[in-house]
């Protein structure tokens, strides 16, 4: 990182460089005009910014572009706005100093200056610059960490909503979703249906074919059920073991039963052998319940009713869909 000295007087450049060099500042660059400095800094057209400058010492009174104009140009440039600028001035007018600070200079040194004064001001400007750079680096780091945290949170949120075996929504997400849909239906006085589906004689299937084969069946059923719903607001979730629940917005008995029947057919036509079932194939029993929710009823009641309809389907011989008709 270099210190840039801009002054039209060779005598000033010489003594400034010597004072700084003797104090251990190795990397010094000098320009004898604002125009030359603009080329070095990369402010002129078609030049890329020089990112290696950590401090500028600049004369105010220079022929051509003066120090105040140059400071303004540098400070208005995104790549250079944080480079500290110390003005070198032999003019004691208050106006010059006010202008310097107004355009962004951080300090000034009156010419003629003594070695001690130059070194003290340069060292304090550099210290401030390093502290600022460190703070900016820490802020950037913090921002990155926060972004990583946010990404991780989103991923966790997704993970905590997804059933790991089937990749469809899990029980936790179902509870949350059903509650929200319930409230929405109450507001809109809309009907809401759920289908509860259960794989028939699944325990026997597991006992015969093993748990891994059982898991495969659960995955296939989940995929088929998910493929059967097409509206964005409808949800298929794994409720537990071999049980699934489908939530259907704005759907009554007829629509619910139609979909349940279609799901039953789709599973049966997978033709997965199941020796211990009277049908010889994996099948699904489904219970459907519908409601126009009110604040007095509850999601638990709706699920309970679908469960009763499911029980009825099992009683009637399985591989069928039944609607909860208010009995039982």
């Amino acid at each position, binding site marked *: 990182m270099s210190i840039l000295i801009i002054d039209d*007087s060779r*005598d000033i450049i*010489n*003594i400034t460089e*010597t*004072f700084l060099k003797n104090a251990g500042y190795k990397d010094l660059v000098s320009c004898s005009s604002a125009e030359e400095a603009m080329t070095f800094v990369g402010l002129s057209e078609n030049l890329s910014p020089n990112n290696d400058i950590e401090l500028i010492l600049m004369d105010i009174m220079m022929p051509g572009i003066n120090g105040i104009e140059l400071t303004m140009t540098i400070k208005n440039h995104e790549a250079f706005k944080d480079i500290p600028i110390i003005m070198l001035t032999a003019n004691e007018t208050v106006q010059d100093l006010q202008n310097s600070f107004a355009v962004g200079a951080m300090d000034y040194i009156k*010419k*003629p200056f003594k070695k001690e004064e130059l070194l003290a001001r340069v060292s304090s400007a550099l210290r401030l610059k390093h502290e600022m750079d460190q703070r900016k680096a820490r802020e950037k780091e913090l921002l990155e960490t926060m972004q990583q945290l946010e990404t991780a949170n989103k991923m966790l949120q997704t993970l905590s909503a997804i059933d790991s075996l089937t990749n469809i929504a899990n029980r936790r997400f179902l509870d949350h979703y059903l509650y929200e849909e319930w409230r929405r239906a109450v507001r809109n006085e809309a009907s809401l249906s759920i289908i509860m589906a259960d794989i028939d004689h699944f325990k026997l299937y597991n006992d015969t074919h093993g748990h891994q084969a059982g898991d495969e069946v659960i995955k296939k059923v989940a995929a088929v059920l998910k493929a059967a719903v097409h509206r964005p607001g409808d949800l298929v979730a794994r409720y537990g073991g071999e049980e699934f629940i489908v939530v259907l917005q704005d759907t009554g008995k007829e629509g619910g039963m139609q979909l349940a029947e279609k799901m039953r057919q789709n599973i049966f036509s997978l033709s997965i052998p199941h020796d211990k079932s009277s049908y010889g194939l994996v099948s699904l029993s489904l219970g459907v319940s519908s409601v126009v929710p009110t604040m007095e009823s509850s999601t638990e009641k709706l699920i309970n009713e679908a469960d009763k309809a499911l029980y009825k389907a099992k009683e009637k011989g399985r591989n069928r869909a039944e609607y909860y008709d208010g009995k039982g």
Partner: protein
Amino acid sequence: MPEKIIVKVDPDIADLVPGYIDNRHRDIGLLSEALAKNDYDGLRKIGHDLKGSGSGYGFDKITEMGRTLESAAKSGDGTEIKKLIDELTDYLDRLEIVYE
């Protein structure tokens, strides 16, 4: 023999001082030329630079002469400027530098 003016200068800048003094000898020529042409802007600029550099090199007298020169140029006081050129010439002639 006119009396010497002894100035103590920081040994750190010993290498720079002969060049600096040479430049001041050159200034005497430039000042006389500028005065002959009534170039008060040029005179003021030289005064300004002398003021800004002198003490830094250890020559308070040069800064002082520069300051006077700058204000004399501003007010167009040729007589005063002539006097200052002589004064600077005399100063440089009698100057003896000690590095310590």
